[in-house]
C-alpha cells in the first residue's frame, strides 16, 4: 500500500566513504603520481636552492651560513652583469624565431608535390641535438676555413672570428640557436594553420581581403593559441640557453658570452667552480626573472579566459 514494496534504487547514505566521494577523489588519485614527482623534483629543489644560496659550500665539506653575502657579492660581480646583459639580448633576439617560424609555416602551408619532404627539411634542425648544432656553427664561423668567412671573403671582407670576438660572440651563438628554434615555432604554426577555419577565409575572400590584411585580421587572430605557446617556449628557451654556449665558446672569450644559466653552472659544477652557494644565488636570480614572465602569462591567460 505504501511505497515500501518498491525496490529502493537509491540506497541512502550509509555507504563507504570511497563510494560517496569517488567522483571527487578520482582525479586526485590520477594526479597523485604527477604531483608527487613535481613536488619532489621541481618544488622542493626550488626551496632547497634558495636555502643553499645563503651558505658558502663547496659541495663536500660543511656548509657555512653566510646570510645574504652571496647576493651582496653578485651585486659587485662584473661577470654576473655580463651574463645578465647577454640574457636580455637572448630574450629579445630569440623572439625573431616567431616571425621567422610563422613565415616559414605560411610558406610551407600549401599543397605542392613533395611538400612533406620540404616540411621535414625545415623541421630537421629541431630534431638534431643542440650539441650538433653548436658544432656545425662553430665550424661555420671558423676564421680560417669556415664557410662564413669564405663567403664574406668574396665581398672582400677580412675574416672575422665571430666566436673569439667579444663584440659578436653572443649574436653568433643566438643565430645558431635561432635555427632550431625557428623550426620549433614553424611546427607550432603549421599545426595552428591546420585549425584555421576555411569558412572564415572564404568569407574574408568575399569581402575582398587578401595578402597582408588577410593575414593580420583573419589568420593571425585564429593563430593566437599557437602564438601563445610559441612565445612561452621561446622565452623559456632563451632563458635556459646553455648547451650552445657550452659547446661553442665555453662562455668565452673571457666570459663575455656567458648567460645566467651557464654562469650558474660554471660557478657551481664546473672544474674550477664548486661554489654551490654562489651558484644557487645566481639560480635564484634567474628563477626570479622567469617568475616575472610566468606570472605575467598566467595573469594574461586568466584574464583571457574570463574575458572569453
Amino acid at each position: 500500500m505504501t511505497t515500501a514494496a518498491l525496490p529502493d534504487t537509491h540506497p541512502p547514505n550509509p555507504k563507504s566513504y570511497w563510494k560517496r566521494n569517488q567522483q571527487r577523489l578520482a582525479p586526485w588519485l590520477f594526479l597523485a603520481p604527477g604531483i608527487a614527482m613535481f613536488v619532489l623534483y621541481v618544488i622542493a629543489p626550488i626551496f632547497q636552492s634558495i636555502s643553499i644560496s645563503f651558505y658558502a659550500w663547496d659541495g663536500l665539506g660543511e656548509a657555512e651560513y653566510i646570510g645574504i653575502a652571496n647576493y651582496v657579492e653578485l651585486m659587485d660581480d662584473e661577470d654576473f652583469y655580463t651574463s645578465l646583459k647577454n640574457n636580455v639580448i637572448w630574450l629579445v633576439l630569440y623572439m625573431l624565431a616567431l616571425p621567422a617560424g610563422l613565415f616559414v609555416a605560411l610558406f610551407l602551408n600549401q599543397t605542392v608535390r613533395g611538400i612533406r619532404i620540404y616540411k621535414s627539411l625545415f623541421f630537421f634542425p629541431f630534431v638534431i641535438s643542440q650539441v650538433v648544432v653548436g658544432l656545425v656553427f662553430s665550424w661555420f664561423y671558423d676564421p680560417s676555413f669556415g664557410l662564413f668567412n669564405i663567403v664574406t671573403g668574396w665581398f672582400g671582407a677580412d675574416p672575422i672570428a665571430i666566436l673569439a670576438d667579444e663584440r659578436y660572440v653572443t649574436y653568433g651563438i643566438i643565430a645558431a640557436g635561432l635555427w632550431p628554434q625557428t623550426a620549433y615555432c614553424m611546427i607550432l604554426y603549421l599545426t595552428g594553420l591546420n585549425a584555421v577555419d576555411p569558412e572564415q577565409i572564404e568569407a574574408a575572400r568575399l569581402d575582398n581581403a587578401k595578402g597582408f590584411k588577410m593575414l593580420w585580421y583573419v589568420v593571425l587572430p585564429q593563430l593566437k593559441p599557437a602564438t601563445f605557446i610559441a612565445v612561452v617556449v621561446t622565452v623559456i628557451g632563451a632563458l635556459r640557453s646553455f648547451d650552445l654556449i657550452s659547446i661553442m665558446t665555453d662562455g668565452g672569450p673571457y666570459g663575455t658570452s656567458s648567460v645566467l644559466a651557464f654562469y650558474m653552472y660554471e660557478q657551481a659544477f664546473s672544474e674550477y667552480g664548486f661554489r654551490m652557494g654562489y651558484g644557487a644565488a645566481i639560480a635564484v636570480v634567474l628563477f626570479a626573472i622567469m617568475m616575472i614572465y610566468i606570472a605575467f602569462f598566467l595573469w594574461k591567460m586568466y584574464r583571457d579566459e574570463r574575458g572569453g
Partner: protein
Amino acid sequence: MFKRTKTLVATIAATTILAGSAWAAGELIINTDTSDPAPKKAFEDVIAGFEAEYPDIEVTWNLFDHEGYKTSIRNFLTADAPDLANWYAGNRMLPYVNAGLFEPIDDVWEENGLNESLASAKGSMTIDGKVWGVPYTYYQWGIYYRKDIFEEQGIDVPKTWDDFIAAGETLKAAGITPITIGTKYLWTAGGVFDYLNLRTNGYDFHMALTKGEVAWTDDRVKATMANWKQLLDADFFIENHAAYSWQEALAPMVQGDAAMYVMGNFAVAPLREAGLTDDQLGFMQFPIINPDVPVAEEAPTDTIHLTANGKNKENAKKFLAYLARADVQTQINETLGQLPIHKDSTVGDDKFLQAGYEMLSNTDGGIAQFFDRDAPAEMAKAGMEGFQEFMVKPDRLDKILERLEKVRARIN
C-alpha cells in the same frame, strides 16, 4: 631523502662486495680517468702485472672519460668510494684532503723507502706535513718548435730573451707567426704566464703568487705582464687564438704557418700523428729572461690516492707500493710516453723524453705543477680568463689585475 638514497647505494655496494668476496680472497677497486689510448694501455699493463704478483686479489677497474671524471670524483668519493682514485698533485687535491676524503699514506712511503726514491715529488704531495698519494708520472713543459723552419731561416735555438725576440722577428719577416696557441679552454694561456713569471720573478715568487700570498697588482707581476705585452705588441701569437682549442692550434704549426708552441710533452704525439718527423720537430727550454733568477721548470705530476671511504685499505696499499716501484714506473711511463718519478727508473729512449729528463734533472730553481694546479681552483679560473683577455686586449691590463686582486682577496 638524499641520505636514504646514500644508504641504499651503500647497501647495494656492500652486498656486491660480500658476494664478490665469496670467490675472491681480496678485492681492490680503482677508479681512473685514463681513457686515452696510451694511458689506458699503461694502466691495463700495471693492473695485469699487479694481479700476476698478487693472484688472490681481484682488481676492479672503473674507467671514466676525462671530463666526466672531474665531476664524478666528488660524487663517488663521498657516496660509493673506490679504494684508489687517480688525481693530480698540488692544490688540486686540497679540497679532498680538507674534506677528509683522501687518506694520508705516510706509512706506505716509510715502509717502501719512497721518501728517498720519490723525493723529487714529495713536496707537491705533502699537505699539513702528511703525504697524500703516490706520484707515478710527470712530463715537462717547454717550447716545441719547427726545427726545419728554424734551419731554413738560419735561426739558432734562442737561449736568452733578446735572442727569442730576434728569432721571432726573423720568422715574422718570412711570413711565419712565431708562436701558435689556442686559448679557447684557457689553460694554455696559463702555461705561457707560468713560464714568463718563472723566468721574470723565479719559482718562490711564482709559488707565493699562486698560493695567494702576493697581490696581483704587485709590481713584479706587472713586470711579467710587461714582458708578455712585448710579445703581444710584436704580434708573436696567432690571430683569433680564443676561437681554438689547443689541438686546433696544432694545425698552423703542422702546416708551417707557425713555428713554436709553448706546451707540455703530450703535444708531441698529435704532432707526430699529423705527419711531423723528429727531424722537423724540436724541443727547447723557455728562454732566460732574468739571468739572476734560478731556472725553474714546469712539470705537472699525476698521482694515485688512497680514499678515506674505501674498504680494502690493505690491498690498496699493496698496489700503491707496487706502483711506486722503479721497474713498474719504468714500464708505465714507457707506455705513457712520459717521465717516471722513481729515481732508479729508466727513461724511454724517445728524443723528447730524454730532452725533458735532462732538462728537469738539471733544474735547480724548482719545479712548478701548473697554474691551475698550483693556484686554488677559483683563482685559477679567474686568472686564466684574465690572461686570455689580456692576450686579446692588452690595454686592459690594469683592470684585469685589479679584478684578479679582488678574487684573491675574497678567497683568502
